[in-house]
């Protein structure tokens, strides 16, 4: 008996976009960081763009695939780095789900990116605190990292908006 696996256009899009995010994720990991847990989060630009152009469920796919495959490529799968990245991604997806439900005009890429950055930082911080450093002193770092998250979230959002402006919305319609 033969099993046929059918893939539609959405699956191909998810794969392409996840590959793009993974590329950025891997390149970004080469940038040295001044503080642990601090990265520009450029790969999240793809997540936000996908959210705006294709909707939440595709953004969730791209985000989780990016964390999973990115960690396999970097050799950090199931390591603390991966767990923090993963919990950050989960928190981001949940917050973006809520944010995408906002009625009216809702958020643009800038708002999504800001919320995503803050959720990611909070998620990975909670993970670090629960699993690795269960000491209340850790939270002294939180305001500093959160400040950076807000700044980078807004910058990434602006970059993302510029990218979206250049994409023809007709080409993103589901066939």
């Amino acid at each position, binding site marked *: 008996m033969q099993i046929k696996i059918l893939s539609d256009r959405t699956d191909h899009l998810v794969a392409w976009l996840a590959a793009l995010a993974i590329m950025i994720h891997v390149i970004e990991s080469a940038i040295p960081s001044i503080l642990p847990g601090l990265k520009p989060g450029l790969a999240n630009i793809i997540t936000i763009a996908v959210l705006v152009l294709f909707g939440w469920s595709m953004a969730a796919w791209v985000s989780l695939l990016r964390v999973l495959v990115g960690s396999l490529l970097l050799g950090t799968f199931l390591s603390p780095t991966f767990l923090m990245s993963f919990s950050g991604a989960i928190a981001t997806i949940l917050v973006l789900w809520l944010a995408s439900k906002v009625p009216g005009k*809702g958020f*643009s890429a800038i*708002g999504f990116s*800001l*919320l995503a950055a*803050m959720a990611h930082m909070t998620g990975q911080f909670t993970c670090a605190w629960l699993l690795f450093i269960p000491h209340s002193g850790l939270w002294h770092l*939180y*305001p500093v990292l959160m*400040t950076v998250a807000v700044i980078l*979230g807004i910058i990434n959002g602006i970059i993302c908006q510029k990218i979206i402006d250049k994409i023809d919305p007709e080409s993103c319609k589901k066939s």
Partner: protein
Amino acid sequence: MTRSDTLAIFFALILLPLLYYQLWRPQTSATHASIIDSHQHITVASLEDAKRLNIRGELGDSVLNIEDGKIRFAQSPCKGKVCIHRGWLQYSGEVMACLPNKVIIKLGGGQARFDSINF
């Protein structure tokens, strides 16, 4: 940018100072000190009035000095005098000890910042 974006940025900018305030707030001052001597006997001393305490230790008496809500080891029969060099303590949850003389001081009162500290 939509109105929701502006609101999100606005709330983020309000949240940041609140976070700094909440997590970087100065420590609370202690109101009393629990002093444990070499026989495990606990003396609780208020930090409000200036006074000198003689605490019986393994080697002899440790002299503690209390002033302006602060406490320190003033004299000690121990060799290294590490306890004296530790200086004044004033925040709730802080701990110091003279190990040779087996005297431990723990500050309490208000809201302690730490339950315990590992070095």
